[in-house]
């Protein structure tokens, strides 16, 4: 029995020893430049999911490491939703990595204002207007200073449609005006076809994809900045009309019935299956559509139709720069030099050419390769007319949430466009 007593205490002891032994094998990785002049930098990104673009980014980093023996870039990948939680937690604890991925506009601003990032104007002055589109570059600028460079542009509004289905109701090409678009919807409905597939469970699609584009067509691209500067209002007739377009489409039963309970991915699946004729989504969907569609399915790509009397340029597509890498403001000396050298290497013409080949729309002046798939070619052509702002790329997070939820409310009937516009304006006023 004495033995048993000892056993219990020794088990306790064992547990404690075990813990400390195990913890010893995970010491902190070393920071900064070591004695022999080698520099190690950590890079956080959201390049998860094995897609053509994330593969290219990782390859690019590997190539850099191979060609720069004195610099090592250590990457760490987290999927984009969780990446943001992680970044914000780490930022709150004042421990950001050396280089990290950032998103433009309202997501970038607090990080910059908190003093966590260093400007990289020295780098971008060379690229501006030459390789990279100046307008997209602006997405990553705060108060006139540049903080990151985009690799690609997320165009948030491309109209994908089943060519055969719309032909069946008498359309050889996609309508270019909203009233004609409505006629198409009615005709599709009369044939028993669900006109538009939309997956709005995650709440951003209706806002980022639809409202960004529809509102721009009606109000013009200078409206949104004006609202935030206090020179225009969400309650102005233009924006309310844009919200009413959503309501109108919903009242026409243009969308699938499960619109608020499926996501963008599932909506794409349903569209590919032929459950509906039109799928409005972003440039990110082109590769997925190419992967999933069967050979005999003919998908066309078009721009959102123009609105009669709208102030916006109907050749524009809402889009925002993506995958910008920024550098930590606490870098100095050899580390900062190495970080800038890496960025310069990363954002080169080679990368943009590869990305375009892989089916991504880029903010750089690179020619389209000849063997491009027609679906992607149409998408590329649709986006040649310039970019319009994306709402969640510009609005503060709080307002985006109000708009997102309100739009779901418009679909279920618990919210009216007028009331939503009023709520948003009262938040701007605060």
């Amino acid at each position: 029995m004495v033995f048993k007593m000892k056993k219990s205490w020794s088990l306790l002891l064992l547990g404690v020893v075990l813990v400390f032994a195990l913890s010893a094998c995970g010491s902190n990785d070393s920071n900064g430049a070591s004695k022999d002049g080698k520099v190690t930098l950590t890079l956080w990104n959201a390049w998860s999911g094995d897609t053509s673009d994330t593969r290219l980014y990782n390859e690019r980093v590997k190539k850099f490491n191979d060609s720069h023996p004195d610099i090592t870039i250590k990457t760490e990948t987290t999927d984009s939703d969780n990446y943001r939680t992680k970044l914000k937690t780490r930022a709150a604890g004042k421990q950001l990595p050396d280089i990290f991925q950032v998103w433009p506009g309202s997501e970038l601003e607090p990080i910059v204002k908190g003093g966590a990032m260093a400007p990289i104007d020295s780098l971008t002055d060379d690229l501006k207007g030459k390789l990279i589109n100046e307008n997209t570059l602006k997405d990553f600028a705060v108060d006139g200073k540049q903080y990151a460079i985009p690799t690609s542009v997320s165009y948030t509004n491309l109209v994908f449609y089943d060519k055969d289905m719309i032909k069946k109701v008498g359309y050889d090409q996609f309508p270019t005006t909203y009233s004609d678009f409505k006629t198409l919807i009615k005709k599709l409905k009369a044939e028993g076809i669900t006109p538009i597939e939309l997956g709005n469970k995650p709440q951003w699609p209706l806002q980022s994809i639809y409202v960004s584009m529809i509102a721009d067509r009606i109000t013009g691209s200078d409206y949104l900045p004006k609202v935030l500067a206090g020179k225009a209002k969400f309650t102005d007739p233009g924006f309310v009309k844009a919200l009413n377009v959503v309501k109108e489409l919903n009242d026409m039963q243009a969308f699938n019935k499960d619109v608020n309970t499926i996501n963008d991915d599932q909506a794409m699946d349903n569209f590919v299956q032929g459950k509906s004729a039109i799928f409005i989504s972003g440039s990110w969907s082109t590769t997925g559509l190419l992967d999933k569609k069967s050979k005999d399915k003919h998908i066309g790509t078009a721009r959102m139709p123009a609105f009669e009397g709208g102030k916006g340029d109907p050749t524009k597509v809402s889009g925002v720069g993506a995958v910008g890498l920024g550098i930590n403001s606490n870098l100095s000396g050899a580390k900062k030099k190495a970080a800038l050298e890496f960025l310069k290497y990363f954002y080169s013409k080679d990368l943009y050419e590869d990305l375009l080949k892989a089916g991504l729309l880029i903010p750089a002046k690179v020619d389209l390769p000849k063997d491009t798939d027609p679906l992607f070619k149409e998408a590329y052509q649709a986006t040649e007319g310039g970019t319009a702002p994306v709402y969640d790329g510009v609005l503060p997070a709080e307002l985006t949430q109000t708009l997102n939820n309100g739009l779901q409310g418009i679909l279920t009937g618990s919210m009216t466009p007028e009331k939503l516009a009023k709520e948003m304006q009262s938040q701007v006023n605060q």
Partner: protein
Amino acid sequence: METYSNRKIKMTLIYVVLILFAIVNAYPILWMILNSFKTTKEYAVDKLGLPHSLHFQNYIDAWHTANFGEYFWNSIVVSVVAVIITVLFGALAAYFIARFDFKMSKTIYNFFIFGLLVPIHATLVPMFILMSKLGILNTRLSLIFPYVAFNLPITIFLLVSFMRSFPKDIEESAIMDGAGILRIFWAIILPMTRPAIATVVILSFINNWNEFVFALVLINNPKLQTLPLGLQNFAGDHVTNYVAQFAGLTMALVPILIVYLLLEKELVKGMTAGAVKG
């Protein structure tokens, strides 16, 4: 008086209820396993049907994408160590709370309830700063400590409620025999508590095995990261490779199933008549 046919009707009824229960519970798991054998295209067009062929490639892809080779063992180490410490410390604490009348007993017991009431996301930033100050960020300790701390309340809670229902005079004869406090705990109380211990082992193992947010922010070193982080790698910015994710989730389920099946018989092992001297 229960007649034979009455009994038969009753048993049939019980089985009908149980079979319905089983179907509703088995469906999602079967669905996940079946879809883990489909190709991406197959899954896109048919989410409910059977796979055309067994596409094992998903499992190979999942193994690589989720970095099973490394993350699996990290998860095992962290989960098992945390469970051992939780149950050991928890059972000991529960024993003193449940079986001794001392002034602070009730207060300490209630104090542990606090831990049940805190939304995990609220402690994320403080926990990160705490670990950073203690200098154990990026070590396994930074996961083991919070896992133990957040599983202790439910462990102590269940064990105390279980131990309290033992008859009061159990220990008395042992004391008469001159047994020490710890021996009573080890030789009498602990064996009687086995069903409840099995329960808390299963629960805290599941919690640790699936824990995500602490692992996300507290560990940065890929050599120490755990499986739930790897299982997120299937989600890209706008596309998710669901079929590979199902394969990964199916593989990740195996250790939990093993733990459950090993302990399941303890859950229903009633006390032998001799154990209770009522």
